[in-house]
Every structure is written in C-alpha cells, then in structure tokens.
C-alpha cells in the first residue's frame, strides 16, 4: 500500500512567510499524480515535505497508512529524482545506483541483480562503468531514474526531472517515464508517482490526475481532460492548455428569457443548459442576480472556428488578423476585435490564405465557453 494522504499541510518559513496554506490531498495507491503550477506555487515544497527534506510546520503526511512527519527520508520508503539529477560525480553509474542499497546492507548479489535489471529496463547497461561527466543529459536522467527504481520504494518523487533537457529529449523521456510507470504496475511493484512540473504539456500527457497549485493553495485536482474541459476557476483555465484560453471582460444579459453575453460590442447567445448552470452558480458567489453582471468570458482557441457550423450556430464576429503562427498541421491565428486580442487554433489548410491585416469572421462555440465570476474568478458555467 502506498497511498499518500496529505491533511491540512502547512509550511511556514522562519521569516514568517507561509508557503503552503493547509492543503488536503489524497493520492491513490499506484497513481501518477502531477503537481503543476507557476514558479513559487509551493509544488516543490510540498514534494520535499513528502520526501522529508523540508520540515512540516503543520498538518500531517501519511504514506501507506503511516504518518511520516517525524520520519527521516530513508525511513519513508521513497525515492526521488532531482532536477539536476544529483548523481554522485565521483562514482560510476553502477555505484550511483548501488549506493543506497549498499548503505542498507543489501547482499551484494541482490544489489548486482537489481542494478542490472534496472539498467536493462532503462537501456543504460553499456554505461554502468561510466561516470556522470561522461554522459549526456538524457543518459544521466535515466541513471537518476534507475537509482530510484532499484530501491523499490513505495513512492517515487520527481522534482522537474526533465526541465534541463532539450525539447526533443523531453518528449522521449516523458513517454519513457509513463511507460515505466505502466511496466512497474504490471510487475506488481508499487508505483505511486508524484511528479512536479511547471510545464502544463508534461502535466497533461503524463498524469492520471493533476493537482494545480497557486501560491500554496490547491486550486483543482482532476484528470487532465477534466481540467481542460471543466476548469474550476480562471487560473486553472488559463494555465492548462496551449495556447492559453482567451479571456475577455463581458456582461451577462437576459432578454425575453434568453441569456446572452455582450463581448467586444457583440452579443452572443448562451445555450439554455449552460445558462441554467450559471444562474445556479451565481448564488454560490453571493450575488443575488446575474443579469447585467460583469463577468469574465473564456473560450479556448480550438473552440473558435473559422467557418459556421451546427456546433457554433453562426455566433461570430469579424476580427483583423494580427499574426498567423503556422505549426504544420494547424495554425494559431491571432486577431483583434474592437481592440481586444484573441487567438484561435484552426486547421492549417483553412489558414493557408490568411495574412496579417486580413478581415476574417470567427465563430464561437458557445456551448464550450466558460463564464467566470469577475471577483472570485470561479467558473460559473460548470
């Protein structure tokens, strides 16, 4: 059993700065949980508190049913992969991987077996006699992962392990880590993984669930798709997804029982189902009426289309193209409407003719839009 339960966790530094504000979280046994957030959101601090490298100021952390607040890192059955690999420079790859086992007085034969098995799994067997300085970044990272695997821990902790790698290597290592997680699970080895990253692409592609943090507070915990489609607030909506969600200040209106949002001087109808949710959620933010309410309108670039369809129901406005970024199979089209900036993601073929300065109609999928309360930034359309 290697579930992690974090209860009212707090971290206060000696200068009085509160980095973590009483967070609660449950990470299931064998789950791949990703902590994501901007710099300074305390994701690494929480990870290090799980590892035992930071003192806990308040609350508890339990691993496998055992409260580990007062346990040394070596007694918590965890293994950690660091951002800078932290491979011992004077030791060979073999010795790096065997070091923890030697300290634990594991028999030599077993050490050798575990090290070689992990080396084969990570394709680093030819590197066992090399020292870290004679290897590339990707190889070092695999050795760091190998060092964690051989310990057969209850929990793997990753602190931005791919951030020092180039983009291409990052993609391949990402896939390798996910594959490793599956393989360990198949072998029956506990594979609860907690992965910290500031890269939302890594978060979306790797995690079973993602915890979005901001300034020491958990904003939302959910599966990648749910975070993408149903962000709980404006921050999560803007953080997850690339390009980022379009946000514009707008006003909610009601005419003849139908709800609409006025945006950049244009009126867009809100589907009834969504309107009902908004109406219900408005009461939770302490507002009596949502008519003529100032809100923040959000819509993802992929929900802004370049031609009318059944889905977008012809809800459109005309914009002036300010930039077209051609990505190969798709393009990011930046445009202005009455001085307000938007970005849409459209098919490469459809954007082939677009030039800067062109006038183009863009259609909104209002069934996919998000309405955020202007003050609390809570998503009212869920």
């Amino acid at each position, binding site marked *: 059993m290697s579930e992690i339960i974090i209860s009212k966790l707090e971290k206060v530094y000696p200068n009085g700065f509160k980095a973590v504000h009483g967070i609660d979280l449950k990470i299931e046994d064998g789950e791949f949980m990703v902590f994501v957030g901007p710099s300074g959101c305390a994701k690494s601090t929480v990870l290090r508190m799980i590892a035992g490298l930071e003192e806990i100021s308040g609350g508890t952390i339990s691993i496998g049913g055992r409260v580990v607040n007062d346990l040394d890192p070596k007694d918590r059955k965890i293994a950690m992969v660091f951002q800078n690999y932290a491979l011992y420079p*004077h030791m060979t790859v073999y010795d790096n991987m065997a070091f923890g086992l030697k300290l634990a007085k594991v028999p030599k034969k077993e050490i050798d077996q575990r090290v070689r098995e992990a080396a084969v799994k990570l394709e680093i067997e030819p590197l066992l006699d090399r020292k870290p300085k004679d290897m590339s970044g990707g190889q070092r990272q695999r050795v760091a992962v190998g060092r964690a695997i051989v310990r057969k821990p209850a929990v793997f902790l990753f602190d931005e392990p791919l951030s020092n790698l180039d983009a291409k290597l990052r993609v391949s290592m990402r896939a390798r880590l996910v594959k490793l997680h599956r393989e360990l699970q198949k072998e029956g080895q506990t594979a609860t993984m907690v992965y910290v990253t500031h890269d939302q692409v890594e978060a979306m592609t790797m995690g079973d669930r993602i915890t979005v943090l901001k300034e020491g507070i958990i904003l939302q915990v959910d599966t990648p798709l749910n975070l993408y489609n149903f962000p709980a607030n404006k921050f999560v909506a803007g953080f997850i997804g690339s390009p980022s969600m379009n946000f514009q200040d707008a006003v909610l209106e009601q005419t003849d029982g139908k709800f609409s949002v006025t945006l950049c001087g244009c009126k867009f109808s809100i589907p009834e189902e969504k309107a009902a949710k908004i109406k219900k959620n408005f009461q939770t933010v302490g507002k009596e009426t949502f008519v003529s309410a100032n809100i923040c309108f959000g819509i993802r670039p992929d929900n802004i289309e370049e031609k009318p369809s059944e889905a977008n129901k012809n809800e459109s406005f005309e914009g002036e193209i300010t930039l077209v970024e051609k990505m190969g199979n798709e393009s990011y089209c930046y445009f202005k409407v009455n001085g307000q900036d938007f970005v849409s993601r459209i098919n490469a073929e459809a954007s082939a003719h677009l030039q800067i300065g062109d006038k183009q109609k863009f259609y909104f999928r209002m069934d996919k839009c998000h309405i955020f309360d202007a003050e609390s930034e809570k998503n009212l359309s869920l």
Partner: protein
Amino acid sequence: MSSKAYKKPPFRFNKNFAFLLMVLPGFIWLVLLKYLPMCGAVLAFKNFHFSRGGFFQSLWDSSWCGFQNFYFLFNSHTAWVITRNTILYNLVFIITGTILSLAIAVGLSEILNKRLAKLYQTCMFFPYFLSWVVVGYLLFGFISFDKGSINSILALFHIPPVQWYDDSAYWPYILTFINLWKNAGYTSVIYLAAIIGIDKQYYEAAEIDGASKWQQVRFITMPHLKGLITVLTLLAVGRIFAADFGLFYQVPLNSGALYPVTDVIDTYVFRGLMYTGDIGMTTAAGLYQSVVGLVLILVVNNVIKKYDKDSAMF
C-alpha cells in the same frame, strides 16, 4: 572549400591597458621579491666577502668556490638534526593540519545557526593574525617555570614543576599544538569555502539513500574536496624543506637546550648568518631548500597524475 589558418590578432596595448594596470602591482611584487633575488643564488657558489664598492662590487670580487658551501652545510654534525626536524615536523604539520582543518570546516558547515558558526569561525581564525613573538610570550605565560599557570596548577596537586624550556621531551607536542592552534583556522576557511560550493542536492540524494551525517561527509564532502586537498598538500610538500621560522625561533625563545628538537634549517641558517656572517653557506642552505622543494613537487605531482589525472596540479 579552403580554410584559412587562424591568425592571432595583434596585441593592442590601448585595449588591454586596464587589465595590464590591474596586473602591474602583482607583477612588480613577483619580479622584485621572487625573480630578481634568484640572481642571488650565485652566492651559494661563491666565497662571499664584503669589499669596498658596495654589495654588487663585493659579489663581483668574491671568488668562486664551487660546491664548498654545500659541503660545509652537509658536513656539519647538525645537518642530520636540522634536516630530520624540518622534514618530520612538516610531515606531522601537514597530516595533522589537514585533518584538523577538514574537521573544523566540516563541523562549521554543519552548524545550523549561522551566527554561531560565524562566531566560531572568527575565534578559530583569530590566532592566525597573531605574531609569533606574541604567541611565544603567550606560551611563556603558561609554561614559565616560576610564574607559569601550568606549573601553578601542578603545584596545587603537589606535582613538581616542569622545566619546560630545558626539557626537550615535550616540545614536539608543544610545537605541533601551537602550529595547529595558529594555522588550522586559516586553512579551514579554504576548505569551508569549497564545502559551501558543493550542491546541496547531493546531500539530499544521499539522505534519501539512507546516508548518515558521517556517511555524507565520507561519500559526498570528502570526494568533492579531494582535488583541493591534493593541491594544498602538494603545495605543502613543496615547502617541506622550509620551516616556519617564527614558530621554531620565537616560541622556544631560542633556548639552546631545546635545539635538538627545535632546530630546523631556517633557524640554523639564521643563527649561522648572525654568528658567523657566512652569506655563502646560508645561501647554499636556502638554494638547497628551494631545489629539493621543486623536485618534490614535480615527483609528487607525477605520482598523483598516474593515479588520478584530474587531481594533479599540472
């Protein structure tokens, strides 16, 4: 496609003026105090005597005597004693000094309260700035026969007082202790600076691997310091034939009874110059120290290169 051979751009004085100006004081010091005096090495091969016309005229007028000054140095019955004392003391100082400096540096790096650590560091560094004359008399305050505090304490326990300045048995330990007390703090700062530069993540990784504090020192700190220890030890070995004059002359207060254990090449040469005025012999002793030191550095560096190329100085 042919490639042109790289042509080094001409040196531009104007462009490099600021850098040359920065280098100038050190360069002048090096030339005046280290390179120019090398010419004086000829004194070792001359039967130097003063004549009218000043030092350089005297040098010119003095006759060559080959290796006679060296024979005189090595044929004197104290040659063995001073050489033994010089080498053995320096060996002990190198070993004990390195161990103690490392221990102090590691200890200071582990102190969580940084203000306390600074206080301890200052206290340990302080003796380095004391002159040997002051140290000599500080020690005198402890081990003076009639007024010293140690003999006073011994008297309280009805133990007979010790003639410290007449009994040579204690002095190898006293000199070693005094040398450590004065210099270990200084050397520890160098090691401490290196320890502070070690990435903390190594220690965290070791902590997660289950290493105790001592194991972290053994497997992380020491290997990182290996290069620095090698360089400092190599430099110390290069000076193994040169003793700290102040320590061996001022601290024993030049007591004749202690010469068998406190006389080293430097004090012997000094006394030789003071009492006999034989510049040629004293220069021979100095040249002998320098040449042997150079040979030792070269030999030790080559030995180190064979086992660990990265740790060698050159």
